[in-house]
């Protein structure tokens, strides 16, 4: 061939000449890259996002003082600095909330459980607590502003009441009503410092909401056991087991969807490339008639396809990251960031689809008889 018809120039002309056809191919390859990127990004971040959703169930690790005799006695107090040690061992992403309990007497002599805790932390950890109004965090002592469980409120009858513990009476006022449908409904919650000042009882339980997947939770458990040797540290079985199950099932579902959708998109690319060759039969026939080898024509088409696949990869990656971001916003209410390590996978997938899809049209090209095609011109 003449210098004027070098391969790059041919390629450039060929792509520019039939703009609508080039555009259709580019769109097909962009879509295939975008779908792969979005699904792979989702798949890669799924673990983290789903485990994050499971934090809605609250604490997954409980620390109590060791119950040596194993029978029905009230749990003993934790070591003095247990809270600080647990916070350090659990790491900055975990939330540690102390609870202290006492059984107080109302004025008519019936028993009621009062609990002291860090109300701000409880609010952040137990999102299912339905509270009409949270007490002020900074409060002057008298009367103590408390959170009253809905059943306790009904039993007490009034918003302002006195409670007695160990002969010491404290005045309290209900700031808000708490409803959980569980044991909390029968209790009264007050800020830990006010509780300790009144009863002298220190925390007996730490509820810990450890972040991350099963392995990370096990690591937190191990660290806690080492840091607090004289306590009973255990995972809430109920939560940890079901969580792993649900996450792994969702991952498998996503993987099967990914394969199915990739296959569909591959057919789309195949159809588009076939159409492209069919429309350009005559161009290829002319090239062959002018002396281009079968190889060269095939190469031209292949390079053209790969160039489009690469362009599609770039557009598709950006588009796919955008789609994953939007899905993260809509569905998980958090941000899903681009994942760089999936780029090779997406590139490989897109090139593979493009080359496989080009193989069938190439067979059509090979069968072309220039003479038949050009006859009559």
């Amino acid at each position, binding site marked *: 061939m003449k210098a004027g018809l070098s391969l790059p120039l041919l390629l450039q002309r060929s792509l520019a000449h039939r703009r609508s056809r080039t555009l259709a191919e580019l769109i097909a390859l962009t*879509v295939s890259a975008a*779908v792969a990127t979005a699904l792979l990004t989702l798949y890669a971040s799924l673990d983290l*996002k*789903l485990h994050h*959703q*499971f934090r*809605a*169930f*609250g604490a997954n690790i409980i620390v109590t003082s060791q119950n040596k005799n194993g*029978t*029905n006695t*009230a749990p003993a107090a934790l070591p003095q600095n247990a809270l600080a040690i647990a916070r350090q061992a659990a790491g900055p992403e975990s939330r540690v909330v102390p609870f202290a309990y006492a*059984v107080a007497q109302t004025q008519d002599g019936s*028993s*009621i*459980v009062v609990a002291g805790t860090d109300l701000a932390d409880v609010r952040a950890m*137990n999102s*299912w607590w339905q509270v009409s109004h949270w007490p002020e965090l900074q409060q002057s002592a008298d009367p103590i502003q408390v959170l009253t469980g809905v*059943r*306790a409120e009904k039993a007490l009858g009034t918003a302002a009441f006195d409670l007695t513990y160990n002969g010491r009476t404290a005045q309290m006022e209900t700031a808000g009503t708490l*409803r*959980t*449908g*569980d044991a909390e*409904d*029968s209790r009264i919650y007050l800020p830990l410092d006010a509780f300790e000042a009144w009863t002298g009882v220190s925390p*007996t*339980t730490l509820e810990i909401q450890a972040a991350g997947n099963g392995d990370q939770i096990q690591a937190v458990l191990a660290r806690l056991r080492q840091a607090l040797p004289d306590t009973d540290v255990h995972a*809430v*079985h*109920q*939560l940890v*087991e*079901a969580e792993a199950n*649900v996450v792994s*099932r*969702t991952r498998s*579902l*996503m993987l*099967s*969807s990914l394969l*199915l*959708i990739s*296959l*569909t*998109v591959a*057919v*789309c690319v*195949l159809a588009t490339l076939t*159409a492209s060759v*069919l*429309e350009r039969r*005559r161009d290829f026939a002319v090239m062959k008639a002018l002396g281009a080898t079968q190889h060269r024509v095939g190469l031209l088409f292949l390079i053209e396809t790969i160039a489009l696949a690469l362009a599609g990869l770039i557009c598709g990656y950006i588009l796919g990251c955008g789609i994953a971001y939007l*899905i993260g916003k*809509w*569905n*998980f209410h958090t941000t899903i960031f681009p994942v760089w390590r999936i780029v090779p996978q997406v590139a490989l997938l897109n090139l593979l689809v493009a080359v496989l899809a080009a193989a069938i049209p190439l067979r059509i090209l090979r069968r072309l008889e220039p003479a038949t*095609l050009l006859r*009559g*011109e």
Partner: protein
Amino acid sequence: MLLRLVMESFLRQRRRKLLACVAILLGATAVTAMLAIGASVGDKMNRELSAYGANIVVYPAADTLDVQVGGVNIRPATAGSYLKESDLMKIKNIFWRNNVENISPELPLTVTMKTAGGEQKVPATGYWFHHTLRSGQDSWTMGATALHPWWKIEGAWPGNGSRNEIAVGSDLARAMHLHIGDTVQVENTPVHVAGIVSTGDATDRTLLIPLALAQQWLGHPGAVRRVYVSALTKPEDALARKDPDKLSPKLRDRWYCSPYANSIAYQIEETLPHTRAEQIRRIAQGEGIILSRISGLMWLVALAALFAAGLAVAASMTTAIVERRQEISLMRALGATRGVIAALFFAEITALAIGGGLLGYLLGSLLAGRIGQQVFGSGIAFNPTILPATLLLVVIVSLAGSAPSVWQAMRMEPATVLREEA
């Protein structure tokens, strides 16, 4: 005539239709499978999440306050009121009866246990372990073991018929040196330790005894303290939080007929007078969040499948028509009007789309079933509501995808196209 043309076209141009067929088939398969999975994932995940335990608790309306610290209730055993065990069957008669997966009554009490080491008062709870409930033809096995799948038993659960078998919490067993097969005196009755249970919570420090035995020791035949119910529910939305008694009749009907945890609790209260039924918010709310996220995700993925299938079908249709330009030109040269040609092609494409769509629906349903079997261990049944959606989508996309090419082919000069015959 048209029919015969379409028939001949199918019989004689098999290769040329191959790509279009594959695309339609695959597109319909993908759409059906993804829609079927999207529609059933909520149900499947709901069942997975029931591993979290009960989401509704029922207790007597006149009950006194629980005095519960560290999972152990220290309220005097005589205080408070009871529900009737015989009434529990009614929970299986509410509007959403089929969503009620499990009913587990509990009756806590304190018992005196005599071992070699002496006498000791220990907390005990009466449960159904594997209780059979019957209503007409149907029967269900319900109880605490199914409600708490994370409870691990060493040995066996106390048998249904033999009243003097018990299970012991692992901490209590360790402290009292109890082993499987031991016989101990509880409330002056010899009982047989059938198993040792490890739960990871306060239950580890209690005796787990058959409900009938607990009722007998407490002196309240047929009494239960509270009932835990595990139900398949719909995630809570704005309507679910409304008070049904303040809604308009129409909205109230919608509220009543949606399987919210709140409406199931409301229906239980209706059937069992003098009770309170409440959603256990920790479980119900958490499940709601997880469910809506996962089904949201699967619907979005199904949407992606829909989009991909649409593109694939449209692209292959374009290709199919490009291949057949000469045919169109020949017909035009022989005097066919554009209307006849359009009718022929569209009839052909519609037939292809319906055939491919039907086959794709079958394949997609089978595929969804396989995926369901693999992932959840239970298949996904054929969902007939997906069929019209799949067919409609495939037909519309096929027609829309081929229309521009057919139009373009008809506008070409027949003479020019025919000269190119290959």
